[in-house]
C-alpha cells in the first residue's frame, strides 16, 4: 500500500516536471538589439588595441558580489574575465570586483573614486538600480546620483556600462521598477555611457516561458548560478561585440 503511495507520488512529480519542461525554454540567450550597449566604449577599445590590456572595475551590490551563487566564480565579474580572456587572447584582462551587498546608488557614488582610481580602470561596469528602487529613492535623486558617479569615473579616465535592475519577483512587484530602468537609460544616453539591459533581457527570458526557478534563488531577489553565468556571458558578448573589430570576433561561442 505504501509502495503504491510512493509510486503515485513519484509519477505525479514526474508528470508535473515533464509538463513543466516542455513548456519552457532553458537556454541562455538574448536578441541582438538587447545586447547593443549604445556606446562605442572608445577608451576600452583603445586600451585593448594599443596596450593589449583591459582593466575593468565591476562596481555594484549583491549581484556583483555574487550572493546567491554556490561559488563566487559564477558571479558575472568572474565570468566576464573568463569570457573576455577566451575571446581576446593576448590581451591582459583584469576585473576588480567592487560589489558590496545592499548598497544603493548613493553609497556607490560615495566610494566611486576610492574604488576606481587605484585600479586605473578603462571600463567601469556599474550594476545599480535595484536597491534604490527597493528603497524607493525618488527617481530624480537617483538620476543625480548616477550622473555624479559617472562624472567621477569619467574624470578618472574610464568608460561606463550601466547594468540595470534584475527581473525577479521582488523587483517586478514594485510599483515603479520600470521607471528606474527608464531613468538609467536616459542618464546613460545623456552621459555617454553604455547600457546593459539586464531588466529587459531577463524579462524576455520570462516572457519566453523560462520559470523564475531557473534563474532566481528561492529568496525571489538574487540571481542563482544559471542567472549569474548567463548574465556574465551576455555581458561579455555585448562588450566584445562593441570593442573587438568584427573580423576578429568570429561567431561567439555559446557553449555552457
Amino acid at each position, binding site marked *: 500500500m505504501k509502495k503504491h503511495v510512493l509510486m503515485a507520488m513519484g509519477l505525479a512529480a*514526474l508528470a508535473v516536471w515533464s509538463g513543466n519542461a516542455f513548456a519552457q525554454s532553458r537556454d541562455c540567450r538574448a536578441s541582438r538589439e538587447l545586447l547593443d550597449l549604445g556606446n562605442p566604449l572608445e577608451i576600452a577599445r583603445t586600451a585593448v588595441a594599443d596596450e593589449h590590456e583591459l582593466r575593468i572595475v565591476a562596481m555594484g551590490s549583491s549581484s556583483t558580489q555574487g550572493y546567491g551563487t554556490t561559488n*563566487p*566564480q559564477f558571479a558575472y565579474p568572474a565570468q566576464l574575465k573568463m569570457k573576455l580572456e577566451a575571446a581576446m587572447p593576448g590581451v591582459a584582462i583584469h576585473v576588480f570586483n567592487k560589489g558590496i551587498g545592499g548598497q544603493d546608488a548613493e553609497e556607490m557614488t560615495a566610494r566611486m573614486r576610492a574604488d576606481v582610481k587605484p585600479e586605473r580602470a578603462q571600463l567601469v561596469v556599474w550594476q545599480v538600480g535595484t536597491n534604490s528602487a527597493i528603497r524607493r529613492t525618488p527617481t530624480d535623486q537617483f538620476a543625480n546620483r548616477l550622473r555624479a558617479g559617472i562624472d567621477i569615473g569619467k574624470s578618472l579616465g574610464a568608460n561606463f556600462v550601466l547594468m540595470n535592475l534584475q527581473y525577479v519577483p*521582488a523587483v517586478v512587484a514594485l510599483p515603479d521598477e520600470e521607471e528606474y530602468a527608464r531613468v538609467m537609460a536616459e542618464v546613460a544616453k545623456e552621459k555617454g555611457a553604455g547600457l546593459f539591459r539586464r531588466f529587459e533581457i531577463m524579462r524576455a527570458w520570462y516572457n519566453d516561458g523560462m*520559470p523564475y526557478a531557473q534563474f532566481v534563488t*528561492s*529568496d525571489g*531577489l538574487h540571481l542563482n548560478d544559471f542567472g549569474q553565468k548567463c548574465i556574465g556571458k551576455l555581458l561579455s558578448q555585448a562588450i566584445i561585440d562593441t570593442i573587438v573589430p568584427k573580423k576578429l570576433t568570429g561567431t561567439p561561442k555559446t557553449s555552457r
Partner: protein
Amino acid sequence: MAAAAPYVAPHQRDIRLDLFRGLALWFIFVDHVPENIVSWLTVRNYGFSDATEIFVYISGYTAVIAYSRMLARDGWPRTASRIYRRVWQLYVAHILLFVAFIAQIAWVSIARDTPALIEEMELLGLGQNPYQAILEAALLKFRPVNLDVLPLYIVLLAAFPFVLPAVVRWPLAVIGVSVALYAATCHYNWNLDAYPEGKVWYFNPMAWQVVFHAGAAAVVLGPRLAWLDRWRWPLAILAVLYLLFSALIALSWQYNSLSRLIPDWISRQIYPIDKTNIDILRFVHFLAIAWLVRLAVPADAAFLKWRVFEPVRRCGEHSLQVFCLGTFLALTAQVVVANYENSIVSQVVVSIVGIAIMCVIAYCAAWFSGPPARKAAA
C-alpha cells in the same frame, strides 16, 4: 512560569526524530545536486522552508534529549565537557569533509584532464592564497559551496552548555531570548564575517539559532504543549491554509502562468524571502509543518516501525556520518551529471545510488556502535 524541577528526558527513544532527520538528510543530498529532477520529491518545491529547517530543529530537539539526563545525573561540568567533545567531533568531521571535498575536485580535474573544472569550481581564495584559505577554513570562515550547515551546527552546539541549564527550567524564557536575538539580528543586520572578505555566514547562526532553540524548548514544553490542543483544529486549519499559500508561491517560481496570478501587493509583502537570516515566512512555514506532523504522527504510531522506513531511520540515527557523506556524494553526483551525462535517467540513478550508499554507511555505523537503542542521540 518557572517549572518546579528541571526537565529530564524520558528513556524511550522518539523514533519520529530518526525518521524525519533521516528524511531531511536524504532531501539535503538530493537538493544539492543541481537541477535534479528527484528534488521534486523533496519539500523545497512546495513551500518556503526546506530540509535545513528540519535538520536544525531536530538537532536542537535531540540535544536536549541527549544531555538533559546527563545534566541531572552528572552535573554541569561533565555535561558541558561531553557537549564540547561532541563539538570537537563535529569540527573534525567538518575539516575532514573540507579536505575530502577539495581532494575530490582536484582528483576529478586531474584524472579527467579538465582544469576548467578547478577553475569553475574554484574554491575562491584557495587558488590565490592557499595558506590564508586554510587558516580561514580552520576558523570556519572559509566554507566553499555546500559546506555551510556543519559550521552552523558547531556554533549552536558550542553555545548549548549555557542554554541547557536554562532551557530545562525556563523553556519559555529561552524562547523569549532566542526570538529577541533573532529579531534584533534581522533588524540590525548582524552577521559573522566569512572569507573571502566581504562575505558573511550563509546560515547566520544568530538568526538560525531560533530554529534550534525552538526545537530544544519544544522537548521541555512537550506535555504543556497539550495546552494548545484546545485550539487543535483552528490551528490545523490555519497551518493548512498557510502551507497551501506557500505552495502556491513556491510553485509560481516553476510556472509562469501561476506567477502571473500573484497580485503585486502580495509579492511586495513577501519578497525577498531571505534564507541567510531565515525569513519569518520560512520559520512560520516550518512551524506549520511541525504542528501538522505533531497531530498526524504520534510518537507511538505503528507505521514508524515499518521495515520500509528502517533505512531512513538508520540514516537519521547516524546523522553526522550520513550528512558528511551526503555532502561529499552530492558533489560526486554533480560531477557525474555535468561531465558524463545529464539526463533524467542519470539524475535518478545518481540520486538512488547516493542514497543507497548513505544507507549502507548508516547500517555499518549501527553495526559498529552496537544496538541502536543504546546509542544517545545528538
